[in-house]
């Protein structure tokens, strides 16, 4: 009590001071200006296009604080923190001379905008960090008003976040969608197909709960197939190389790896690490090597005369851009030519990231080397024998060297690394060096690592051809020589190693790097223009150990045999790192042009994102760990946002490709961060858990009916007061047609298949590849197995917005066009499906058949008015075929004879399969 009394006075004084200061403050409001919310939007829209990452007019840029307060060309700084009055920037905004006023020759900034900038400078011109560059933190789940509870809307935390935003705009959620509709919608979102009838019925009859129903969907292997299409757009997966010839590439094992990884629910961080750097993991498995084809999906140019280095660099640039498009929602491609126009990323940082990717073995080789050789049983037993021999008589390191060589034919020096000395007697063409009599080529800075055996792949066209290897000059010391006769087999196949011939010669031990000269001569009488020899690569390897052991010559011979004989479809492109002595330096490119390299850079990550942890390897593997670190602010947000987009047709950040400072602000920031944080932590990066969480929410389960009020207040469904109603994807539309008609094959995996396609679609020059219609069940496989030719994609799927997969595509733009109607009305694939569908129901009275077909296809009951419409169609059709029965001889398909009833039911089936309720997911 005593204390209280004593302090009473003090308290009184304090409260008086408090109130006075309150009044004072209210008279002079001192709102703190936020850089990110108030200032940055003005700078981005009004200033930065002339004073930023691209142009630095008058030496001024507003991209970084140090640049903005630095001295400009005029000799003084534009911004003097703490004094707007002295700051040139503010003066220029008020200027009456139009030539002097900023923005130059543009309307004057508004009073409010000038006021914001003025106050901000007075308050010290503090910079801020864009929300997306701060890692998501654990979120408290908000409590919406009672009414949402009463509506039974609050099923899981998602609904809490969504409800509080609805409250902000006085919206109320729709009723839940009826069970039949939500079951179909969810099945498409998980498996890409309508639900199987047994689990669907169990759910309708309350034998299983909604959650159990969803679990069953995830157990279906169709889940991996459906979501693989989503990921393969980012991965720009295709079955051809792109560019002019656009020949077939055998990389389908990567597509299968994605399907498996999704079905096994491989945590997303591992999923990412294996694709970016599986080859650098300790003792990588075959699957982990296969995963690295993610970045071998870049295009390669096989046209004559193209510079392999140009297209190698283009591929590396594409890998940097794709990595940031696919995983960081960052428009990194902007930074190739200059600092980012809006986001705080410096030009140099692009090349520092590129340095992580720049040391891979591939260099636009004609056959997509290096490739993982999937050996057949015969070769495996040979390989086992040789590796066992090497283990017995050699070191562990030697075994590793030979194992790598057998598995990848690596490391080698490829023909494209050589220089031709005299263009008249030697040349480089697409993938090999050609020698005429006396022709010579040069490899600068070769390094044999003191190895004593030189291997080279060759094809010899003449008898008595002497191939000479010299050191350091055209007439230098001979380090190896061999005389070869005409090879019998055909030329080195463009398809692969099948008929590759490899020769080995002994060379002396050479210390350090040297210039290697290779020449070819013959004393036989030949024409000047005759070619003696083609050479594709050379390699230096140690001698096979166990020299004096019995059986050594056979082992040597078998080793060479082992280097060929793999089928084209068993050669899978992989990402491999160059060994140290063959590693590349990385330079900045002036204005992004590879022809004008500037200063050398070392691997590093952009400074606007999470920092580097020194325990990470300073290579691609370390980079992959950086990107999947829980401290990375963008990876989880990117994935969460894109999964959300797939399900709702709209991102929480609606610009799903970009979360930078030019992106749309998130509609539900706390929800995005809650999902992102939980995705990394409580969900352990599980995509299945993430999708399931969304699907279990009441937000998702709402009816998609658009009420009058809702259509006016929220036409774009930003606040989710109704459920999503999306058109199915190209693959889903095809798969569904085959599914309802009973034609769909359940076969998974393997090389791309070729379902029916009109004649004359593939017309690539210099390329004999043909579209050969698949037979048997391969004709009816799921859409994602359709062969993807970059310059000529499957036409009916392109019509439904599939992209051409040349580069990373983050978003398919949904369109609604007459050409789509032509596909589902007239494409023989859909006609065959409609006919098969009708056939399944043709032994019932026609009214029953129509009803059953409709209900089977749409998972809805057929209302009387719709039934009448379909019955009328049936009767019109039946009348037509009664009058002109000729149409029944070739109905829908060549030589297909059908009854009037079947034809009329097929017409009705076509109608059903073109209904909006069939083509959307409800």
């Amino acid at each position: 009590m005593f204390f209280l009394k004593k302090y009473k006075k003090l308290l009184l004084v304090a409260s008086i001071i408090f109130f006075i200061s309150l009044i004072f403050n209210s008279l002079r409001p001192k709102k703190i200006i936020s850089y990110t919310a108030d200032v940055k939007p003005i700078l981005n829209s009004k200033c930065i296009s002339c004073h930023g990452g691209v142009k630095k007019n008058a030496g001024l840029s507003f991209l970084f604080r140090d640049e903005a307060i630095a001295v400009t060309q005029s000799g003084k700084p534009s911004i003097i923190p703490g004094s707007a009055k002295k700051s040139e920037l503010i003066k220029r905004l008020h200027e009456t001379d139009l030539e002097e006023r900023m923005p130059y020759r543009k309307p004057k900034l508004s009073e409010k905008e000038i006021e914001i900038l003025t106050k901000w400078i007075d308050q010290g011109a503090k910079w801020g960090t864009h929300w997306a560059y701060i890692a998501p933190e654990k979120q408290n789940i908000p409590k919406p008003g009672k009414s949402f509870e009463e509506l039974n809307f609050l099923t899981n935390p998602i609904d809490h976040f969504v409800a509080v935003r609805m409250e902000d705009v006085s919206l109320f959620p729709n009723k839940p969608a009826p069970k039949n509709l939500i079951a179909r919608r969810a099945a498409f979102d998980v498996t890409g197909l309508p639900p199987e009838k047994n689990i669907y019925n169990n759910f309708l009859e309350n034998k299983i709960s909604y959650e159990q129903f969803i679990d069953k969907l995830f157990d279906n292997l169709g889940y991996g197939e459906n979501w693989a299409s989503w990921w393969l757009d980012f991965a720009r997966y295709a079955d051809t190389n792109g560019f002019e010839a656009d020949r077939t590439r055998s990389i389908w094992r990567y597509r299968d790896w994605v399907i498996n990884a999704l079905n096994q629910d491989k945590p997303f961080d591992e999923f990412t690490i294996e694709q970016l750097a599986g080859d650098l993991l300790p003792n990588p498995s075959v699957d982990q090597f296969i995963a690295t084809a993610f970045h071998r999906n870049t295009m390669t140019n096989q046209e004559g005369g193209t510079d392999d280095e140009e297209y190698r660099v283009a591929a590396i640039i594409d890998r940097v851009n794709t990595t940031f498009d696919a995983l960081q929602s960052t428009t990194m491609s902007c930074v190739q030519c200059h600092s980012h126009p809006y986001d705080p990323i410096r030009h140099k940082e692009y090349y520092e990231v590129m340095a992580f990717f720049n040391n891979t073995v591939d260099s636009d080789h004609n056959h997509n080397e290096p490739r993982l050789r999937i050996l057949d049983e015969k070769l495996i037993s040979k390989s086992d024998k040789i590796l066992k021999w090497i283990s017995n008589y050699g070191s562990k390191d030697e075994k590793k060297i030979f194992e790598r060589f057998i598995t990848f034919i690596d490391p080698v020096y490829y023909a494209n690394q050589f220089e031709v000395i005299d263009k008249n007697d030697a040349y480089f063409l697409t993938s090999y060096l050609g020698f005429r009599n006396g022709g010579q080529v040069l490899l600068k800075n070769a390094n044999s690592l003191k190895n004593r055996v030189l291997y080279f792949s060759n094809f010899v066209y003449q008898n008595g051809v002497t191939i000479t290897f010299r050191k350091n000059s055209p007439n230098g010391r001979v380090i190896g020589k061999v005389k070869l006769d005409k090879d019998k087999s055909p030329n080195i196949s463009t398809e692969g190693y099948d008929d590759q011939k490899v020769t080995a010669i002994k060379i002396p031990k050479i210390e350090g790097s040297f210039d290697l000269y290779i020449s070819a001569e013959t004393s036989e009488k030949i024409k000047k223009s005759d070619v003696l020899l083609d050479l594709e690569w050379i390699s230096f390897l140690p001698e096979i150990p166990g020299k004096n052991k019995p059986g050594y010559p056979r082992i040597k011979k078998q080793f060479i045999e082992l280097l060929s004989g793999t089928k084209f479809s068993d050669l899978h492109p992989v990402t491999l790192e160059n060994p140290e002595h063959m590693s590349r330096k990385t330079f900045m490119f002036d204005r992004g042009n590879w022809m004008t390299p500037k200063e050398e850079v070392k691997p590093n990550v952009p400074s606007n994102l999470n920092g580097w942890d020194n325990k990470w390897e300073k290579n691609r593997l370390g980079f992959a760990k950086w990107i999947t670190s829980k401290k990375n602010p963008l990876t989880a947000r990117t994935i969460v946002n894109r999964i959300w987009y797939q399900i709702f047709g709209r991102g929480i950040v609606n610009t799903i490709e970009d979360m930078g400072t030019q992106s749309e602000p998130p509609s539900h920031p706390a929800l995005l961060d809650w999902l992102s944080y939980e995705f990394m932590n409580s969900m352990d990066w599980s995509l299945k858990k993430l999708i399931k969480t969304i699907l279990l929410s009441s937000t998702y389960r709402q009816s998609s009916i658009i009420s009058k009020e809702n259509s006016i207040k929220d036409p774009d469904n930003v606040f989710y007061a109704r459920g999503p109603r999306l058109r199915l994807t190209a693959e889903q539309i095809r798969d569904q047609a085959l599914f309802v008609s009973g034609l769909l094959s359940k076969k998974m995996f393997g090389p791309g298949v070729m379902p029916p396609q009109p004649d004359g679609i593939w017309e690539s020059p210099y390329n004999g590849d043909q579209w050969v219609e698949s037979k048997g069940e391969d004709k009816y496989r799921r859409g994602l197995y359709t062969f993807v030719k970059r310059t000529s994609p499957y036409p009916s799927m392109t019509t439904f917005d599939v992209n051409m997969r040349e580069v990373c595509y983050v978003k398919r733009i949904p369109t609604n066009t007459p050409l789509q109607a032509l596909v589902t009305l007239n494409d023989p694939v859909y006609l065959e499906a409609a006919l098969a569908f009708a056939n399944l129901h043709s032994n019932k009275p026609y009214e029953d058949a129509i009803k059953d077909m409709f209900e089977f296809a749409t998972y809805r009951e057929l209302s009387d008015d719709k039934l009448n419409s379909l019955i009328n169609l049936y009767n019109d059709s039946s009348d037509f075929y009664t009058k002109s029965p000729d149409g029944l001889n070739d109905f829908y398909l060549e030589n297909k004879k059908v009854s009037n009833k079947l034809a009329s039911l097929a017409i009705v089936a076509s109608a059903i399969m073109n209904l909006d309720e069939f083509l959307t997911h409800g």
Partner: protein
Amino acid sequence: MDNIKKLLEEKNTANAKLNSRRHFLKDCTLGLGGMALGSLLGSCFSGKESLGVSGAERLLNPLSPSAPPFLPKVKSVIYLHMVGAPSQLELFDYKPELVKLNNKPCPESLLKGKKFAFIRGVPKMLGPQAVFSKEGESGNWVSNNLPHFKKIIDEVAFLKAVHTDQFNHGPAQTFMFTGSARLGRPSLGSWVTYGLGSENANLPGFVVLTSGGAAPDAGKSVWGNGFLPSVYQGVHCRSKGDPVLYLSDPKGVNRTLKEKLIKSINDINLKEHEKFNDPEVLTRINQYEMAYKMQVSVPDVMDINNEPEYIHEMYGVKPGEESFANNCLLARKMVEKGVRFVQLYDYGWDAHGDLEATSLTAGFLKKCQMMDRPVAALILDLKQRGLLDDTLVIWGGEFGRTPMQENRIGVGNLFVGRDHQGDAFTMWMAGGGIKKGVVHGKTDELGYTGVEGRVSVHDIHATILHLLGFDHEEFTYQFQGRPFRLTDVEGRVINEILS
């Protein structure tokens, strides 16, 4: 002028009626329910006749016409591309100096630092394989390979020093038609239809016609939509099979039955709309109706039999065949019907001289014959119909040919041919907004490089967009977070050839 008035009117109406989805729903959906199929959407929208363009119309039909930001000079484009790159030295770029150097070894100075597709070592120079003369009032040069062209020489503006940085067919074509040598960007025609839509709702806005037996080397990407919505992709109208993929009715189904099928679909979809109130359903209803109309209008426009005999004669067409002549006539018919962009690709101009078919003295001459007459006919025909003033006609290849003879991998060919050359080649334009009978640009004495008035591929694009009423620097599309332009960060309108 009437046309420009019309476009302006369209633009004004469009601005006035800046309709949102909501307006559309309010204005147009009331009373839809009871209407019959034929007039289902007639009250709000109809094909060519409608003047008013609204945001709502673009929702229903993304190809509905819309006016450009600036006064356009032309409303449609016919682009004649000679796939494989024709030799400027045998057609338009007369080089008497080269006659003297014929068969002499190429000076080292011309080879230093140069890369070729096939020339290796030191090739021989090759004089012009044609006789040139000055023709028309303009007195511009043309070779005897193009006798018919002489009739239209005063209509065209030549660009004699076009250059590209690509010397392989695939990338050079991709560059010529998308502004980038790598795949993935929208094509010129896609940009144009994205910006302007189509004048005829029953035909595609961007039509591609091919001849010569193969598609361009770069594949369908040269008419691809890139990152634009797929509706703006070029529609390949084919001479064999369906003119547009999946256009013809299924076997055993006639038009009446098809109409009933579509009516049934649309009736049920209308009920779906009543229930869900989703505007996308209305769009779908409209698309099915348009698909039905296209099935009639496309075969009709693709049928050249209904053209009079003198027109057949003029172009040299043979109905039922796939030929460049047929395609030229089709281009005229399409432009007449309001197709926005007609792109012709004629394969087979890669005259290396490694085969008889690619020899400048054999196969190449045949290609010239097949091209010369229909091109002249096209210009004259457009002119006599008063369409030339509203149309831009462009002729060119993806690059030019070397003044040296090609010597495949250092040896020399059996026939006479030239290798690829990106540094200088000839293109021409004719039609609305183009100065008649002018020459812009000049190459050196050998036709090896441009010495005056050099124009880049980006400049060509900027000029085409300018004539259609766009500022190429402002005409952008937002993709993956940044605005893209057809002309990337370059391009200058070639004012020298504008009237």
